[in-house]
């Protein structure tokens, strides 16, 4: 299969990675199968459910809609990296206290998506409304919670961060 594979170098969660990958391999399969970063999940393989959400060059993307070879030279952050850096620690704590996850399969993607909203809101010094939170996380499917608890947790962190800054 060598004619169908390519060498790529990228930074994943702050570590430099060089691998030979099949050209057809998606980013999330590369993260899970080659780097064993199993915190990113595969749900619909179609870009609908958001379970594979990760950050590439600072932007939130679907790991199932991007090929690994497209990430040559990129900086990729997964839930493992976001956890270890402490960037989403307050959000994780709020999810745990509010039971904003049940099976937890959607949670890594949900956290990355929520953090995108919260960062944007912080930059604009705004607290998103519940409707805005619902709208923003609507590309992330959760079958367990019914979303109410997730909205509660994200809203609580938005308010806490706004309060902390003031």
């Amino acid at each position: 299969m060598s004619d169908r594979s390519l060498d790529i170098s990228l930074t994943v969660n702050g570590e430099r990675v060089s691998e030979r990958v099949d050209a057809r391999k998606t980013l999330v399969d590369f993260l899970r199968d080659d780097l064993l970063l199993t915190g990113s999940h595969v749900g619909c393989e179609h870009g609908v459910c958001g379970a594979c959400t990760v950050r590439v060059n600072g932007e939130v993307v679907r790991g199932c809609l991007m090929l690994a070879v497209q990430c040559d030279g990129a900086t990729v952050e997964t839930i493992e990296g976001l956890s270890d850096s402490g960037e989403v620690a307050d959000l994780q704590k709020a999810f745990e206290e509010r039971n904003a996850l049940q099976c937890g399969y959607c949670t890594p993607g949900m956290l990355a998506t929520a953090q995108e909203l919260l960062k944007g809101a912080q930059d604009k010094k705004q607290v998103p409304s519940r409707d805005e939170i619902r709208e923003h996380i609507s590309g992330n499917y959760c079958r367990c919670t019914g979303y109410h608890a997730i909205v509660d947790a994200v809203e609580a962190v938005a308010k806490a961060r706004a309060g902390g800054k003031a």
Partner: protein
Amino acid sequence: MKIVDDSPPVLTALDRPNSYIGRSVPRPNLQRLTQGRGQYISDVTLPRMAHVAFVRSPHAHARIVSISAEAANKAPGVIAVVTGAELAKVMTPWVGVLTHLKGLKSAPQAPIAVERACWQGEAVCAVVARTRAEAEDGCELVEVNYQPLPAVVDPETALDPKTPVIHPSIADNLCFERKLEVGAVDQAFAESDAVVETTFMFGRHTGVTNEPRAVVADWNQGEQRMTVYHGTQAPHMMQDLFAKHLGLAHHQVRVLTKDVGGSFGIKVHTYADEMATVALSKLLKRPVKFVADRLESFVTDIHARDHRIKAKIGVKKDGTITAFEIDDLTGIGPYSVYPRTSGIEANQVVNLTGGPYKCPNYRAQARVVFTNKNVMCQYRAVGHPIAVAVTEGLVEQAAAKIGMDPLELRRRNLIADDAYPTQSASGLKFELLSHHEALAHLDAMMNYAGLRAEQSRLREKGIYRGIGFASFIEVTNPSAAFYGVGGARITSQDGATVKLDAQGNISIASGVTEQGQGAEAVMAQCVASAFGVPLDKVRVITGDTDNTPYGGGTWASRAAGIGGEAAWQAGKALRQNVLAVAGAMLQAKPEDLDIRNSVVVDSATGNERLPLEELARVAYFRPDTLPAGIQAELMVTRHYVPRAWPFAFTNGIQASYLEVDTDTGFVKLLKHWCVEDCGTIINPQLVDEQIRGGVVQGIGAALFEHCLYDERGQLRNGTMADYLVPMAVEMPDIECGHVVSPTADSELGAKGAGEAGTAGAPACVMNAINDALRPLGAATLTDMPFTPDKILRALGKV
């Protein structure tokens, strides 16, 4: 942070120091999940592990004339290509029947189809390779020669003499039939002032667990032992089935569940492709992994709720309900699913219809027929959403017909709160329910009168809002009456083993399983409370047949009520054992001692006498210093099974407030309420989140979810882009309230809460839509899901 906790204080008898019963403590296992450090079965990798992909029938019904594996066998990475006939030598077939569903019949089903494929998506050949991608490449090279056969797709004609019979070994396409007649039904209808007769349709839908079904089977030829990492709700049941169909003893099979990415009843059944994966591991003597992709999930995860129900209610002018009558027809695919069968949902519909009401006249018929579509079986709230929608749809249509407020009609008919114990017309036994208190609580919580006023104000402005209700009952804590008496090897009892370690911490091994509902938190709360330690001293182990007591797992809302009681009793028993040792060490009477916050104290004064850590040190490392005859037993097991009642019924009532856009047919959900009575509430937050998640699953059925088949039996929407599920933006906030009527069958008094939300929500939304559209003279909507085009049709706009 808004944490709703309006449950009244209960359980004074259980209110000891370290009492966590009734408290919203966080689950002990969440941090690994928020950090992406869980281990789901789809994450499991083992040495020498191979991957299997399946060639699946593109036809709803076809004879398999030949399979040519030559090209696939030569493909890169392919280890083996295995047909149904070859695998049949490794694993025996199964038949999904139960003796207490009298007359229920089905045909033998093999792990991979042999000779004939009976639905689109049934596996006909397996390709095992080094990677999943190579296995899929191999599948494309397998040449299967099919001879298409006529497909039975419409349940309405499945029993017609000219319709082909799917299984030649069975006389007809009838899987199961039940008839029930209680009271004087014809006379009751004749004496009614109004009769409503209508047909309800329920769209076939499915669970769409976020993590698809996944299994890794590891046959160790050296140990002669099968280890199965399996995303299942019932590890001991699966151990029994793997052993039975591979010809192994129980102790040769270990099932481990790890983290499970959503279940909802989807992962409590025998799936042919999972059985095949286990058989392939035995055949190939190496670990084999199967993870369903999303299309495979849509065509093979059990479907549910494909029911057509002709229904009838009679009422008097004063609102008295005189009779209910239903005729249920459901098409369940080509096989009754093993081992729970596919007759249960229709049976539940017959049992539950009319359940909240004191109406003595009831006639029901249910027919379950075979079709060439994917199989149907038990999915969250089995039968409840159908029975509740039929009952509550009839009740609200009857109320409209006689011009009575729908809550008032319920008040006049719901079984009185002081009437217990009692039973329904269908024979369900109720220990203690609280329909009227729940209704009053809901009325106040939602400000019903205020909403009605708002509704009529807005109607004048051309804004059409609706309010809909659903009273319901829910089957929880099932005894052996559910499956055991019918011959299924599915245990209704459950166990907990509690151990004091050498530092004075507690470990609990429970037979129930965790799929995210919080069972591990509940076990920890029960043991910590009964024994007397802080929660951070407790660790819970579930989902491992080698290391947990024999138990049923998690289904039918049984984990807290049954598993929790076993844990409570085990905690109490360990406390007695520890106090016996403490008494010997302290020269005190055990009954004068207590354990509080991990310290043995004088119960009268609370004076600290002996830390548990010190007691454990002596018991484990210096037992020689204990008085002669004192043997410390610091590990105990207790089991529990409900005996007094076949099921612990719960009850509740939901309400939906929504707005219909009469130009587009879109429904905007504004708010949802649920008042529920699950007996003793062990963890209010977890109960509320079960309700909320369940409500949204029910809303999905009402508005979005539908497995659409064409006339050839082909699923037309097998992706998440085409099959709609509820996403955050369409969902409302959901307010929960509680009434507490504990069951006296257990000390804890807890009943289940996992299915109440799903049971009532579809009925509520249906009733609210019809309430919104009634002043416009729209046809009554009874055909779920209520998509915009159906709403516009009801309005006569298209």
